[in-house]
């Protein structure tokens, strides 16, 4: 056991020198309570970064479970009928991929704005609205895909393949809606007269959004291969 004093490791204090709080209230914001614009913090708070990765890990596990269910069910199935994916899915994919690009553009603009390089925040807002629009287009497109299947007489309980199609896409769309919520939050925070958007909020929202993108690509591949 320790017999001497271990000097505490020199960790950078992750809070203002006054040591007021772990809540790191204003200092990572575009605009602290004071209202004077400061240079944006180079990175987002470790907590939020850890948080989002942990969250994404959880979501990954959930879809891994769905996947294994699909594989097991497909393996032993005598009643599995092949389901050809509605082509609109590929249009939706384009929407989603596009939204990721626009979101990255938006982040650049926000950063520029935060560093005071760009005087106005309207370009960043523009890109954000575009991202939001594309996201909504994706959701709408998925709905259209369901309508297409329905018109072919393929309902949730028609066949395991259709069951899994509806379940997986619905689960994904629900998560995407969460992402849209994040975007809305970012937009509202940014469009205030004195923006109160925190770097961490923007980062986590966009990490999540890109993850939805990756997840969708995976699901598309899975559905393409297995159904």
């Amino acid at each position: 056991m320790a017999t001497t004093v271990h000097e505490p490791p020199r960790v950078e204090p992750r809070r203002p020198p006054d040591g007021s709080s772990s809540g790191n209230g204003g200092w990572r914001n575009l605009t602290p309570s004071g209202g004077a614009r400061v240079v944006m913090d180079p990175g987002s708070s470790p907590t939020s970064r850890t948080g989002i990765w942990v969250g994404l890990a959880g979501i990954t596990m959930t879809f891994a479970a769905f996947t294994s269910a699909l594989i097991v069910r497909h393996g032993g199935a005598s009643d599995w009928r092949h389901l050809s994916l509605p082509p609109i899915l590929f249009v939706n994919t384009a929407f989603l991929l596009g939204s990721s690009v626009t979101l990255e553009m938006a982040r650049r603009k926000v950063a520029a704005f935060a560093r005071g390089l760009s005087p106005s925040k309207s370009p960043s807002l523009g890109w954000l609205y575009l991202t939001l629009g594309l996201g909504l287009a994706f959701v709408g497109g998925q709905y259209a895909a369901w309508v297409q299947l329905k018109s072919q007489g393929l309902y949730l309980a028609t066949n395991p393949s259709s069951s899994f199609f509806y379940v997986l896409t619905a689960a994904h769309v629900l998560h995407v809606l969460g992402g849209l919520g994040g975007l809305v939050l970012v937009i509202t925070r940014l469009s205030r007269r004195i923006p109160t958007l925190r770097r961490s909020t923007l980062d986590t929202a966009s990490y999540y959004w890109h993850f939805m993108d990756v997840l969708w690509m995976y699901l598309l591949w899975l559905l393409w291969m297995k159904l």
Partner: protein
Amino acid sequence: MHDMSAQAVHHHAPPTGFIRKYVFSLDHKVIGKQYYGLALLAVFIGMVLSWLMRIHLGWTNAAIPGLQWLSSSGAPGGVMTPEYYLELMTMHGTLMVFFVLTTAPFAAFGNYFLPIQVGAEDMPFPHFNMMSFWVTFVAFCVTVSSFFVGDGPPLAGWTSYAPLSAVGAVAGPGQGTGQVLWAAGIAIFCVGQLLGSLNFISTTLDMRCKGMSLWRLPLTAWAWFITSLMGLTAFAVLMPACILLILDHVAGTSFFVASNLVINDQLQPHSGGSTLLWQHLFWFFGHPEVYIAIVPGMGVVSHVLISAMRRPMLSHRVLIYSMLALAFLSYMVYGHHMFVSGMNPISSVAFSFPTLAITIPSTIIVLIWIGSLYGSRLRINSASLFALGFVSMFVSGGVSGFFLAQPSLDIMLHATYFVVGHFHLVMAVAAIFGIFAGTYYWFPKVTGRMMNETLGKVHFWFSFVGAYCIFMPFHYLGMAGNVRRYSAFVDDFMQPLIPVHKFITIAALVTGAAQFIFLYNLIYSRFKGAPAPQNPWEATSLEWTIPSPPPFDNFGGKLPVVYHDPYQYGVESSTGDYVMQDSPEKIQSVRDEA
């Protein structure tokens, strides 16, 4: 995305309104207490259910006075029907496993003490934390509400095997609405625990105060961290499983329900589902869940024992590695629940060896506990008694694992009372002893008052002896082939065993009654207990460096700096034989390191 940043909780003044302060509080301490309260409610409901079940098993055709008012159809004239027995059994298991063994040691204690022990003012995502409790509360309400719908709660057991749980009311009373409510409740519960785990992990990784390296975390903090890692993965698998189950049940899909099932001469509309799929998904969650229930207990017990022994464990790191090994292995062994389920016999063998391997970390942990007792200055009080009781229980329940890990013996013991005895000792009773130890140990910190030691010891003696009287005989019953989940014993070979059941029932009634001593002690001491000093146990970890009860922001706005490993006992210092984790004082060890 919800506001993901650790904004604001303690940045403003503490909340004033009653709602913000006690109901929708963002304060991890209040949330911890709320979880504890929920667990307390659930455990007493679950206990009463088990009483009714035990009475029925001892005296099957006897009328239990008043039961008919609880459920006129379930117990006409007070005589319990088979379906009602199974409904009580299902709810007993569900309440205990999910709402007691998961919430109390993990969510309740963890919420309250993890941030304090890492030296933080709160968890990073207080809103998620609040949601985590209230979502869990909703889950509780949904699950319990099944008592009040049509045919009552489901009778499929807490494992809810498909297709029994998936085909609907045709399979029996309670399998209609009740089963759907159960699945929905559990799915919601998963969401709550996922939010909790997310907070726990980020707290441990990012909210540690200056000088608090990972190895300097107390064993409790480590236990909660490891548990949250398991929770994140396990509950994320159970939730989709429950969703698929609900779809099978209400939407007519066939994930779990096979073709050509004929129930009550009616051909079921499902086709092609995989019966084993549910068991795989459920036990992939189910076995880690066992460790989610017990690992926090291990942490609490180590924590309590150390301050009672006045010395650190023989090896801090070996204990941590062993707990990590348990967590890791727990994902590779779930198949031992399915040895005779029709799963490929080869995979049974494959699953049996990791299961046996789990005895190694468990044995290491036990030996470290016992070995650390050697040469210590053991203090006996309610907390340490329960902690030592935990060790004894964990050993007793653990050795029966030798049998159940082997497929060839599982042929004889599967689904018998041997299994019931095994998991009650190793998981239920042990975990609950952990909860008791933690309660007696931390109550002064939480309430600022001491619990009554005498009552505590009386409570311990009833619980310790009682638990053995109840659960040891279960093993004998199992070896004689007494099948579990029977609402009555009509088979000839079970008749000679009924006296044993009567004995167990009496033991259960007495032991259960003794728990009211604890309840009384809890309530009495909360208001009338002797005022507690800041550090009644002369312990070293950070929670004892702050007033009892802790102020709203834990450390009074000034975050601690940590200089030592968590357990500096058996040393010479100005404070006595221990040095607080945050005191810069140099340590002269007077322990003779062998």
